[in-house]
């Protein structure tokens, strides 16, 4: 006789499974084999402890989980490599300790961690998903003796979802296997839907969890007179030496380190002798080795304004602010800077001007540390333009403009 699990008059849903109880491992394993051989696939065995070999007895196919874990692990590997390659070598290329922009050895730790992380998540969450967890209720708990499954009871439940399920024949099969009463477990009347208060609670938690993100987003579009909030203080205020400060750790006491002798900074290898030294063989080049265009002249003008104008003056007459102040104070050791419009300076080759900027001359210091090579050439181009502007003849004015100026 099929005993209903619910004796109370609670409303009941459709049949979930027919459950048989067994006394020991041997009996339940034997029953599992019989049920398997009868062609059932949608059934489960419940026991207080893992039973070795029960998967075989039940005919459970190997889980797909390892493949999911493998796929996710490989995604982690590929994702980590792509992320590091993109950020370090493409989006924001930045040389660190002279290592390649995308150095495989440096990328391995993150790749390893991400592979492990993705695999672990896949194993953990995949197991939950494949078992259709979490769920707050299962119809098997309707069985009045099911709590014994945590102690000394062994149960076998054939689910109604099985294609071979037939209430009468399935019951007869189980009755032939077990001496205990066979119990039918029904779905709850509401199909096991999550109770409203649980759903409300979950939604509330989700909403509360979004608040910090909403606040962060809002602050992106608001002006504030308060000082910024520093989450990681020692990244915002790092201990460091300022460029011109003294550093007792070095013999020469300088915080700013000169290049190590015999080394070349990345991208500064002098493969072109003219470009690097301003010389062709032993002679100064007269031609600027870069394409002289408006962009180069603008660059030269800006660099000239920063580095040269303080002494040489904006127009190049040697009357810059520093020079003017020094002669005003009548400094005895002050040597006035040269006017760039002297015949001597005008007669100098472009290469020599370039060399003077980088390496200095007489009392003029070398600017090679501050001014990159191409910028020095830009300054030379601008100086040439300045010189021409201050020593121009009528022929230099375009004919059309000449008429307008009444020349």
């Amino acid at each position: 006789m099929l005993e209903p699990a619910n004796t109370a008059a609670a409303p009941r849903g459709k049949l979930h499974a027919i459950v048989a109880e067994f006394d020991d491992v041997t009996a339940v394993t034997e029953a599992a084999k019989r049920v398997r051989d009868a062609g059932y696939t949608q059934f489960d065995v419940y026991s207080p402890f893992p039973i070795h070999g029960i998967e075989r007895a039940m005919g459970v196919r190997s889980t797909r989980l390892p493949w999911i874990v493998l796929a996710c692990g490989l995604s982690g590997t590929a994702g980590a490599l792509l992320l590091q390659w993109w950020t370090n070598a493409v989006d924001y290329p930045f040389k660190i300790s002279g290592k390649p922009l995308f150095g495989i050895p440096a990328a391995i730790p993150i790749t390893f961690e991400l592979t492990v992380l993705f695999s672990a998540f896949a194993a953990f969450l995949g197991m939950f998903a494949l078992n259709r967890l979490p769920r707050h209720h299962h119809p098997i708990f309707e069985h009045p003796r099911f709590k014994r499954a945590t102690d000394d009871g062994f149960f076998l439940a054939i689910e109604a979802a099985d294609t071979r399920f037939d209430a009468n024949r399935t019951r007869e099969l189980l009755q032939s296997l077990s001496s205990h009463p066979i119990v039918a477990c029904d779905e709850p009347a509401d199909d096991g839907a999550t109770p409203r208060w649980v759903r409300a609670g979950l939604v509330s938690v989700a909403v509360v969890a979004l608040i910090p993100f909403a606040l962060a987003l809002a602050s992106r579009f608001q002006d504030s007179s308060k000082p910024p909030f520093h989450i990681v203080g020692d990244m915002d205020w790092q201990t460091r030496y300022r460029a011109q400060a003294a550093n007792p750790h070095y013999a020469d006491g300088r915080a700013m380190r000169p290049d190590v002798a015999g080394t070349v900074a990345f991208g500064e290898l002098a493969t072109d002798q003219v470009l690097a030294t301003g010389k062709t063989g032993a002679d100064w080049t007269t031609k600027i080795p870069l394409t002289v265009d408006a962009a180069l002249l603008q660059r030269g003008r800006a660099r000239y304004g920063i580095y040269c104008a303080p002494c040489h003056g904006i127009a190049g007459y040697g009357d810059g602010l520093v020079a003017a102040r020094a002669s005003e104070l009548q400094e005895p050791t002050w040597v006035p800077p040269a006017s760039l419009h002297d015949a001597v300076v005008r007669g100098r080759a472009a290469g020599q001007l370039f060399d003077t900027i980088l390496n200095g001359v007489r009392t003029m210091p070398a600017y090679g540390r501050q001014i990159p090579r191409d910028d020095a050439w830009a300054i030379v181009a601008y100086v040439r333009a300045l010189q021409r502007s201050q020593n121009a003849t009528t022929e230099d004015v375009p004919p059309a403009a000449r008429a307008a100026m009444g020349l």
Partner: protein
Amino acid sequence: MNTIPATSNARLGPLATRLRTFALVVALVAAAAGLWLGHARGDGFQRFQHAWLLACAFFLTVSLGALFFVILQHLVRAGWSVVVRRLAELMAANVVVVALLLSPLVVLAAMGDGSLWPWADPAAAEHHPLIAKKAAFLNGQFFAIRCAVYFGAWILLSRWLLRRSRQQDEARDTLPTEALERRAPPAMVAFAVTISFASFDLLMSLSPEWYSTIFGVYVFAGSVIAFVATTILTLRFLQSRGILRGSVGVEHYHDLGKLLFAFTFFWGYIAFSQFMLIWYADIPEETHWFHVRFEGSWAYVSALLLFGHFVLPFAGLLSRHAKRNLGVLTFWAAWMLVMHATDLFWLIAPGVTHGGALVDVLDVLAFLAVGGAWTFGLALHAADRSLVPVGDPRLHESLAFENL
């Protein structure tokens, strides 16, 4: 399970005598040929010493891996491994053979012969300031004392482990097992310290100017691989002769396969950790050691280690089905032993093979000589006694062991 099938056919029987005779003949012939050829080189036995150290290191790592395994089983009171533990105990106790074979090299170093360990020559310190700074540690006398301590500790420990385990075979109570479990923690500490320093002394000091604090762990990782692989092959050999068929089954192979897989990855992890820090810091005195191994034909050996010692076996042993398929597992065990030998060759030989990564006939002869002697010792230790700890309180658990 009332009658224990494990006790039937768990002895070497007539195989012991044949094994001993065969191994001894191989050892003596190979040793004689090796010594004669080594002498003929006229290099003061320098090449021969390297080959001999390589062979000794190989079988020493197998014995030390076994020692680790035995201590570990007692430490965690493992049940599954009881049926294979006696083999490990025998291999561990067999470290005495390596001690005997390695001692001539240690004596030579103590007498100031720097052809193997360069620092052993007192003149070396005069030429190299780094060696001079390490002279307080790296000198012949202290080195010989340390070697005596390492090998003394290993021999005493392994013999005690074997003796107690055999006492348990006969005992009516479980007192011997309890003693083993009680002493396992300090034994494990002693093992960690000794294998680490022995690696520094025997292998790392071949390049005395170089150092790597993780080196001991690197050698340890290789040791466990060597031991597990040797055990798998030994079990397969014995079972093919009808021995241990009643006790060791696919479940035990599966677990040995897991250990092989785990330590293959562990080796890769440690090897990379050692490499990456040196690569990143880029300090000449450290990079030199790798630089030598990335030049010429040594680069191919380095690549072989990366793929053969790590990538391929990792992929090959990843699946449960591979570990439970005895043919596949045996292949990987043999493969890993070859890789372990390659690894030691990579550690030891670059100092002496100036022409590139060429295996010398002396390497082969030394390997046969030491391997023969080691096998001889193993058969001697096994005698005609049970290869299964028949009195172990967890034997039933081990016999009934199932992974799935």
